[in-house]
Every structure is written in structure tokens, then in C-alpha cells.
């Protein structure tokens, strides 16, 4: 059973417009969420995160919104740029283990964003 779902495999947006990437989760025990960005032939890089005690976290052009009652989060990119074209993964830590770090991350299947000039 998929605990983190990204139902849109792809999204195409015009440069300068807003990109909205969506993610749903089923496990109400998740209390922290992350977004990673991946370019072809590179490893994923951490983009932004949000704790469940917040409903919004902003970092420059990137904002993540969390709706706990709907078990839904979204990543907004404003304005979108061609360099934002990548695969975006939503992720949540499955549980804490020794060291209390992020531990085992459950990833969604990813959404491929294409920003057209």
C-alpha cells in the first residue's frame, strides 16, 4: 500500500507561471514531510521540508503547504523557471531509529515538471 502518493506523473507549466505539485499521504503518524528535486543523471537534492506543527513553510520561490485534515501537501513554485524542470519527490520519514534522524524515508513516485520558456 502506497503511503505517499503523487498522482500526477507529469506537469507542464509556462515560464513565469505558478507550478503546483501535489502529494497525498495515508499514514496519520507522519509528522514531517520533505520535497526532493532530481535532475537526470544526478542524485536527488533536498529542496524544502515542513513539520506537521506548521501549515506552511516558505523558502524563496518555493512554498510547501500542509493540510493535515486532508492528509495533503503541495509544493508551489512561483515564478517557475526553465531550470526548475526536474522530477520532484515528496517524502516522509517512516519512523525514527537510532540517532533520531530522518531515518527510513518513504518516497512518492515523483512528478516530472517541465517549465517551458
Amino acid at each position: 500500500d502506497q503511503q505517499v502518493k503523487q498522482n500526477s506523473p507529469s506537469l507542464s507549466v509556462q515560464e513565469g507561471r505558478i507550478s503546483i505539485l501535489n502529494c497525498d499521504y495515508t499514514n496519520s503518524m507522519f509528522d514531517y514531510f520533505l520535497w526532493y528535486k532530481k535532475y537526470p543523471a544526478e542524485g536527488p537534492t533536498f529542496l524544502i521540508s515542513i513539520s506537521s506543527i506548521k501549515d506552511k513553510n516558505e523558502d524563496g520561490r518555493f512554498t510547501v503547504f500542509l493540510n493535515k485534515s486532508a492528509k495533503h501537501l503541495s509544493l508551489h513554485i512561483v515564478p517557475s523557471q526553465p531550470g526548475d524542470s526536474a522530477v520532484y519527490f515528496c517524502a516522509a520519514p517512516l519512523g525514527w531509529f537510532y540517532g533520531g534522524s530522518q531515518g527510513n524515508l518513504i518516497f512518492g513516485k515523483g512528478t516530472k515538471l517541465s517549465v517551458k520558456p
Partner: protein
Amino acid sequence: DVKVTQSSRYLVKRTGEKVFLECVQDMDHENMFWYRQDPGLGLRLIYFSYDVKMKEKGDIPEGYSVSREKKERFSLILESASTNQTSMYLCASTAGGGNSPLHFGNGTRLTVT
């Protein structure tokens, strides 16, 4: 900057071969991970390690083993490679404590023929 280095970008191996994928990180991180990425399936955790000589199974450990003899190095071993292990393999590390993010290497594209 954290650097996670995977020894090979591309590998081609034959069915039945024993395959070693090597990963080294330079930030003294306690925790290291091996994921594989497949189209339409996202990233799936194979094994992870939170200390030298310690290892834990992830979601899809079958057909794999790992070795962590030194803190900076985490090796993934395919005991007898099969075609369904053709994939992109990603190593990652993170420091213990708090919500420190995973740092990924650039991946190894393994093709098993």
C-alpha cells in the same frame, strides 16, 4: 558541502555475476542508505546502516546484501545479479539527530544483461 561519491556512474554486468556498488561520504555521517529508483516506482529503500557493522533491511532487501566496515563507506552487494536488478542505484547519508536531510550521490546506472 557534503559529498557522497559513488564509485561508478555506469555498470554493465551479466546475469549471475556478483556485483559490488561502492559509496563513500566525507562528512562523518552515522547513517547511510541504499535506494533504487525505477520509472513509475519512485525511490525504494534497499538497506540502511546507522553505525559501523550495523545494517537494517529496507523495503526491498531481497537479492542484496550490504557491508559497512568503515564509517565513511557503505557497499551494496548483488550476490547473483538478475535482469530485474537493472536500475539506478542511489546512495545517501545523513547525520544523526534532528531533521537533517539526506544527501545523495549521483547514482550508479546498473544494467544486467
